[in-house]
């Protein structure tokens, strides 16, 4: 069996986010299907529909944008049924070329926040572990060899392999798999080549490869709940998680 580490990145366009974050959630293969089922049930119970049926996606920058908090605070907390009805009407409004009503904005805002909170609870309930490397947005030095793997990625892989090793010390068939958001083929090939070189040429890389398969699986994020949930988690970290040596902007609402 395996641990799957669903990975995404945040802030790499160096535009609005205070940090660059590489990371995601690791979940054991034996818990993956129950986790996906719980998220799909939660999605139906919260929005009255699957978000992808309405061109929406489970994404931190959508579910937790500041507007959602403003909408949610427009009135008192709705009961589950009213929230679902208003959230669904909100989603249907654009298909019907109609501007949503005030209580539909409110219901949708509350639904987004509820869904995000419950997704985090579901991760905890299914024994998932959060992994993330945060760094300041620094441009890649021109002198750097194209084959070089960034230090934060190296550390992230190392800690994931350490986690698998620690939890399955004598079980050598337990390995970690990397599942990444597909970007473009060229960039994905470069990353895969960097990982391979890291494993073949460095001691740290070789040690890591004993527990983590250094060949990532690239998936379309809108088809993979794990990657979408990873996006949600690292969005929250980017705006809300700080160690004492981090002084980037913080969103208090998160």
């Amino acid at each position: 069996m395996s641990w799957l580490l669903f990975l995404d990145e945040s802030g790499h366009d160096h535009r609005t986010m205070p940090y660059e974050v590489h990371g995601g959630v690791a979940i054991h293969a034996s818990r993956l299907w129950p986790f996906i089922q719980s998220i799909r049930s939660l999605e139906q119970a919260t929005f009255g529909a699957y978000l992808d049926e309405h061109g929406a996606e489970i994404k931190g920058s959508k579910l937790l944008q500041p507007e959602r908090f403003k909408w949610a605070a427009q009135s008192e907390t709705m009961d589950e049924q009213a929230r679902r009805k208003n959230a669904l009407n909100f989603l249907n409004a654009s298909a019907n070329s109609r501007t949503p009503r005030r209580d539909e904005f409110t219901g949708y805002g509350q639904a987004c926040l509820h869904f995000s909170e419950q997704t985090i609870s579901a991760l905890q309930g299914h024994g998932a572990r959060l992994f993330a490397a945060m760094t300041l947005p620094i441009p890649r030095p021109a002198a750097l060899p194209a084959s070089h793997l960034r230090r934060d990625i190296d550390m992230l892989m190392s800690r994931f392999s350490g986690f698998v090793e620690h939890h399955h010390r004598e079980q050598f068939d337990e390995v970690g798999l990397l599942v990444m958001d597909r970007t473009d083929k060229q960039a994905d090939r470069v990353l895969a080549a960097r990982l391979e070189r890291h494993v073949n040429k460095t001691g740290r890389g070789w040690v890591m490869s004993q527990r983590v398969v250094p060949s990532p699986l690239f998936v379309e994020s809108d088809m993979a709940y794990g990657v979408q949930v990873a996006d949600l988690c690292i969005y929250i970290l980017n705006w809300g998680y700080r160690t004492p040596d981090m002084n980037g902007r913080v969103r208090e609402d998160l």
Partner: protein
Amino acid sequence: MLEPLMWTGFQRRAEEDVRLPSVFFVQNVYPPDDPLLFQQK
């Protein structure tokens, strides 16, 4: 074959990393004294 240079610097057995936080801040992902970086061929 592993390059000897790569065994220096911040090398550490991966299993020791489990004691470290799984969410962490990296001050500089391109440290100039990192032997894994600028001396690569």
